[in-house]
């Protein structure tokens, strides 16, 4: 039975605003990591939640055009970034995954702590985002 195409005006209007709020919150959580609550894992999960909200509101065909990423590749790319971060410290004679940090003066932002944990967190973020969206979309495409 073919269902009529519905026009969810309320859902579309709400999701267009809320999804960007959730994306901004996920970026905040990503940069708040390793000293405060936050980090790559929960940031990736929140980004996946915002994408799932978009997939819920609009259909799969539109979102394939709007987000033309291959989410399988994100898992491999994230793992590669995290691994290379660990290996880089070995090149300077330190053990695997040794972390360094320094306080740097950046214009308009004041003193900012830059750590080598941030690229590692970026890898975790990409792996979590890719894995969560691959699982959800595979299950969704399967039950036709």
């Amino acid at each position, binding site marked *: 039975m073919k269902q009529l195409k*519905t026009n969810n005006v309320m*859902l579309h209007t709400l999701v267009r605003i809320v999804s960007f709020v959730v994306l901004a*919150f996920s970026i905040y959580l990503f940069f708040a990591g390793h000293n405060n*609550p936050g980090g790559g894992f929960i940031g990736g999960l929140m980004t996946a939640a915002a994408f*799932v*909200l978009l*997939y*819920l509101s609009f259909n799969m065909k539109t979102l394939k055009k709007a987000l033309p990423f291959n989410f399988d590749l994100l898992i491999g790319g994230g793992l590669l970034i995290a691994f290379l971060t660990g290996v880089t410290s070995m090149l300077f004679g330190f053990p695997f995954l040794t972390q360094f940090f320094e306080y740097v003066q950046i214009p308009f932002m004041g003193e900012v702590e830059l750590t080598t944990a941030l690229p590692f967190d970026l890898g975790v973020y990409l792996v979590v985002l890719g894995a969560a969206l691959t699982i959800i979309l595979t299950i969704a495409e399967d039950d036709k």
Partner: protein
Amino acid sequence: MFGIILNIVLIMLSLNIVICFIRTLIGPSLPDRILALDALGMQLIGVIGVIMIAQDTVAYAEVALVLSILAFIGTVAMSKFIERGVIFDPD
């Protein structure tokens, strides 16, 4: 005095959560369960807010935000499921 009020509020919110959980378990229809789960999530956020007042900290603000986002997405997904039968439209 203020601490006693906060404790009373926490006890009432806990009782509310238990009632909502019972409704989620025995709810005769699917919309009952969805509404009960949504109310349960909102009361969890209330518990976190009261604990933040009681401990005089803002450390749990992210927890409340994450919980509210996840409760919202869950409610939207389940509502769409009972309305359409599918969660993700193919086209």
